[in-house]
């Protein structure tokens, strides 16, 4: 499974050291609250080395809890293949009056082509037992971030390992942890000495050697950047009209055993189409693609599975 390393935490500007591992991903888990009506506790941006490299993180997703006029949030951002070295990471809140904190950690041995098992899972409630289920497989690493809306004693669930130390914010605290993956879900849980509002998000990170997600179905659109044609593969396009040197936009992926769209990925990927094949009697093309137009980088055999 991926390994978490080089943890750093804080608020605003945080110094982060990134190791030189070829399958690395920098993750920022951010959480906090906004007590002024209309204010957002989310980040508007998260940037690695804004005065130099200036590489923005991508927002993976998050989960809100709205109680009365206050809003709490637990969210995650990520950066694939960040340059090794020590840099400042700057997280900018959407609204200046909010209180948010961040955990940065570098995950190594990540499948950087398909880093996440599914969309971020979130839960919220007012109780003393925060819990959320994240879709997972045995070689995954599951990350979570809890925002608890009071400063109370929080105990991490069984099997989970704390990431960094707890951070006290204006109205509550955040804590992060990770746990080994398991099929089909992993429950990330916490217990508190007193009940209050909480929001918890979790996601599974895929190991670099896991080939199960590399069967990709192409219920997707294909577009041609030059001619701006959008079509649906399998439904409306003749297979021989699907052309290489174009892109596929994948809306879903699944394990080889699945036959339905049961495990969609909400973070769609694009693939450059290297080769298209067609044959009489078959209404779908076979395709071979790669990402980022890198020659000889083959990350997926694109085959149709199930029913469109």
């Amino acid at each position, binding site marked *: 499974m991926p390994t978490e390393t080089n943890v750093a935490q804080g608020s605003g500007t945080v110094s982060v050291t990134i190791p030189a591992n070829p399958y690395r991903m920098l993750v920022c888990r951010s959480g906090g609250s906004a007590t002024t009506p209309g204010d957002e506790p989310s980040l508007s941006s998260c940037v690695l080395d804004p005065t130099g490299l200036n590489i923005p993180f991508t927002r993976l997703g998050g989960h809100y809890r709205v109680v009365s006029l206050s809003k709490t949030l637990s969210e995650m951002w990520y950066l694939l293949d960040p340059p090794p070295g020590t840099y400042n990471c700057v997280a900018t809140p959407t609204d200046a009056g909010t209180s948010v904190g961040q955990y940065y950690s570098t995950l190594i041995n990540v499948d950087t082509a398909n880093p996440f098992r599914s969309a971020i899972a979130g839960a919220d409630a007012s109780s003393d037992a925060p819990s959320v289920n994240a879709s997972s497989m045995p070689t995954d690493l599951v990350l979570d971030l809890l925002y608890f809306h009071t400063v109370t004693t929080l105990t991490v669930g069984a099997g989970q390992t704390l990431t960094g130390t707890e951070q006290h914010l204006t109205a509550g605290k955040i804590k992060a942890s990770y746990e080994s993956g398991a099929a089909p879900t992993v429950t990330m849980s916490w217990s508190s000495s007193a009940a209050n509002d909480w929001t918890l998000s979790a996601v599974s990170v895929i190991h670099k050697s896991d080939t199960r997600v590399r069967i990709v179905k192409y219920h997707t659109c294909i577009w041609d*950047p030059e001619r701006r044609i959008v079509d649906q593969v399998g439904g409306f396009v003749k297979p*021989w009209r699907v052309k*290489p*040197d174009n*892109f596929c936009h994948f809306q879903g992926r699944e394990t080889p055993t699945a036959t339905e769209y049961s495990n969609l990925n909400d973070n769609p990927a694009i693939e450059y*189409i290297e*080769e298209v*094949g067609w044959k009489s009697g078959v209404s779908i093309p076979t395709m071979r693609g790669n990402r980022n137009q890198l020659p000889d980088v083959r990350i997926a055999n694109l085959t149709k599975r199930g029913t469109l």
Partner: protein
Amino acid sequence: MANIFTGTLEISHDPIALWESYAITLPPQEFLHSPSYIDIEGSERAEDGFWRLKTRIDGPEKFIEEMFSNGLGRHVEARDPDGGEPIWEGKLFKVTMDYGAETISKDLTDVFNALWIRYRITGSTTTARSIVYPNAASIARYGRKEKVLNIGEIPHAGVADQCAQIFLDMIQTPKPFPEHREGQKMHSPFVTIEARGYSECWGWQMYNQTINTGTYTTSELIEDVVSSKCAYVKSYKIDANSTSVQEELDNDRDAGDLIRSCAKMGDPSGNRWLARMEAGMAFRFKSAAPATLPPT
């Protein structure tokens, strides 16, 4: 069933060698026409363009035999019934006549009709080339297809010349290759054809620039190579790529190898470039499609 291929397959004479005049349009077998094709499959690549096409042709025995005898090198096009440009275009490279228990095939890949040999005279430190031995009849039939052999050190140049002539005599025409299939019954013959895109013909001739005249751009080199050595290119569009290459190529590299090497170098901004054949035997050298966001 709207996506099932019901287009036509058009086979015509070699558009460059022009040793015959031939054209036939084949419908799919479902149309109850004879001759017709059945089980067609094709492919296309970002690099090279049209790649492979394979199909079986059924028809009267005389027609099948004629296709087996004369088919190699013919131009092949697949067309969508909706019209427009050919959806696949290329050259017939392999033909197999199938009687069930017996098959016999011929392959253009194994044919060469202009050959020379690289060698060194024992004790010398410089590489020399033999005379170029062409076979006019084979060139007129299949187009010029060069091959270079290297035989290392030899006592005198005459050895290389003799080797070149002997080897050329062996490979200037396609050789029928029979096969017996145990347990199969004999039936009336059909023919299976395998065609390749015209990018396969880029490598049919060698490109040498023996004098070092400085540098020029990748686009200039490719234009020089395509216009002088790629007979099966009817037109070309070469976009400007300023990647610099040395203007000396004296290693008997085939034109296809050079074209693909130039494409792999990309451009000075690190963008990927493609060399490919498009409909109408048109050569295209261009940057790969940019990874733009999909339209909404």
